[in-house]
């Protein structure tokens, strides 16, 4: 089932065209968004989160047209979002903040206590549930951000740089969480870490200069790098080399 349907999407960020003619379909599973800085990943995430409005094109989430106010509201109830810069209220505890977000997501009140508890447990912050957010480390804050994103069991989960600040052990646990959620729902992860994509994602989408330049499985991306295996500038792993190769090929085509 298609949960994300993007057609002819053009979007601006700071007056500059950040996404140019994007067509995309996503279903259940984990989708990685890769690309260099300024490629348009965050603009796409913001658009999918219904925070940014498209200049052109249409975005349909979970069967709802986000151009319509009612459709946007219905979609928002069923999505979870972790922005690249996670803002929070420092005086709130982890549990209070997650509960506040559950209220904002208009969750049925009888479900909230259990959902808050479960979300905090899934990100491994049970022992810090009563701690104020201002007392948490960067990694813990990121996990609190993930907890608020998943509190409503979203059918579409959007995570922008979710592993930034997490230590290796936490990243391993986080990938497990992604797999768990992605088994039934749609998870979109924007990241710079090719390694995360290789291990966790079912599908990878590569952007450059606002254009979609590659879409396939991590293995298919890795195969693009097999021809330049001896070129150390392409990366240390096959996926990194595939990523570099795809970018170079696109840029060469664009110059030509």
């Amino acid at each position, binding site marked *: 089932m298609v949960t994300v349907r993007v057609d002819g999407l053009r979007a601006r960020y700071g007056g500059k065209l950040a996404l140019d003619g994007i067509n995309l379909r996503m279903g259940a599973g984990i989708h990685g968004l890769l690309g260099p800085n300024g490629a348009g990943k965050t603009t796409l995430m913001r658009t999918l989160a*219904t925070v940014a409005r498209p200049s052109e094109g249409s975005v349909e989430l979970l069967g709802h047209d986000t151009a319509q106010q009612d459709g946007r509201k219905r979609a*928002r109830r069923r*999505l979870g979002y972790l922005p690249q810069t*996670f803002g929070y209220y420092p005086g709130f505890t982890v549990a209070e903040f997650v509960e506040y977000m559950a209220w904002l*997501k*208009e969750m049925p009140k009888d479900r909230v206590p259990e959902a808050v508890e479960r979300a905090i447990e899934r990100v491994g912050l049970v022992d810090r549930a009563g701690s104020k957010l201002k007392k948490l480390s960067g990694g813990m804050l990121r996990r609190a951000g993930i907890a608020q994103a998943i509190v409503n069991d979203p059918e579409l989960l959007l995570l922008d740089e979710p592993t930034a600040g997490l230590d290796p052990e936490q990243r391993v646990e986080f990938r497990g969480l992604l797999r768990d959620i992605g088994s039934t729902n749609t998870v979109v992860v924007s990241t710079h870490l090719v390694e995360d994509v290789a291990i966790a994602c079912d599908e990878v989408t590569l952007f450059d200069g606002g254009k979609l330049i590659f879409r396939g499985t991590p293995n298919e991306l890795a195969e693009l790098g097999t021809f330049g295996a001896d070129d150390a500038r392409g990366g240390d792993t096959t996926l990194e080399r595939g990523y570099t190769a795809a970018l170079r090929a696109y840029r060469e085509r664009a110059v030509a």
Partner: protein
Amino acid sequence: MTARVLWHEIRRSGLPLWITPLLLLVSGLVFIQTLLRTGGQRLEWATSIFYDMTPMVVLASTLALVVAAWRAGRERRRGVAELIESTPRASSQRALLSWISVAIWPVVSCLPAVVAFGSLSREAVSGPPLFGILAAGLATVVAYAALGFAVGTFVPGRFTAPVAGVVSFVVTIALGPRVPHGLLSVVPQPTYGTIATNRSSVGLWDRPVWWFAPAAALWFAALAVALLVVATARRRLLTIVPSALAVLLAIPLAQTQVWRIDTASPSLNCSDGSVRVCVPNEVGVAPNAVATSTKPVRTRLDDLPTVAPLGVVDSTSASAYVWPQNCRSYPERIRCSSPRPSTAGEKLAERVSGWQCSSSSSPGTPMYTSPAPRLERGVRDWLLGRTGDSASEIARYLATLPDNERHEWLSRYLLAAERCDVSAVAGLRVS
């Protein structure tokens, strides 16, 4: 659920730390004012409410404005706006929750003023307590919180709240008294004035018309709603016109001279019994308590010819006494002596024995100088039953006189005192 989130907002807003000093400040100001008014001094209700509301309205409203402006800019300052934008909850609900959590603390800081007002209700004079004005004052604080929220929403910078607070404080303090009947007078502020009546010591005070307090409270509440709509509306420009109309409604409200003469204040409230003791409504105490307190003095005054200073009120005036209430008007206040019914007997004796001379102030007032102080003190002591060894010589002398001689002596003195005729008492024996 909403209540729980509101509770989180209230607890985690950091405002309790801000509120504590303000609570102490308002409490201090109100109670100092209250304490200064004890010691035999009474104030009219309009003055009492003014003293209570000045710290309440000025300080609490300024605080409400500041904290609401600060809170309104919180989402953008903390970088939470994007996250919240991705949720379905209506921005008006979110803003209302946020606003309530900050507006509640300034309202709480008004509680000392409310308590002080309640405690003063036994002391103040001139008609019934003006609780409606107090409610209008609370509505003022709430409206300021809405104004701050609207300002903070439009200008979410870090300097918005302190600048708005300073501006509000300066405008309220500096311009408020200069615009007695202008827009700012919508904030309940009494004007002062008395009109002397033909009865000495009974005054008419200004009171607001009955609808003023509810109208002012409603106006402030409506203003608060209008400002919140402006702050949360998706299309803000469309809300400007109805909001401006709401603000402009203050002009007719402020221009109707709502503080008017209280014609009911001097009407009498009388005790039961064959001899009635009447107390003007403005005194605000039970006439029966005054009757009990004054009974010994009144018993000694039986059959004496002059009760005129006590007040002749109607066809049954021969048995009606008006409790002498000594009130003096100052430019900004009215002070009344003898605040407690228990002292009414003493005041009655003082009044009866005092000299009604036009060149002098009334007996019992600070400026009063008796033309015959020894005689006056003696008569007063005798009326109060103070005839023991420590009593004045004249009081003891009066106690030894046969009834008919004492009656003649006292009649001569009281007539002289009422006519301010010192020569008439020149030949009175004093021992």
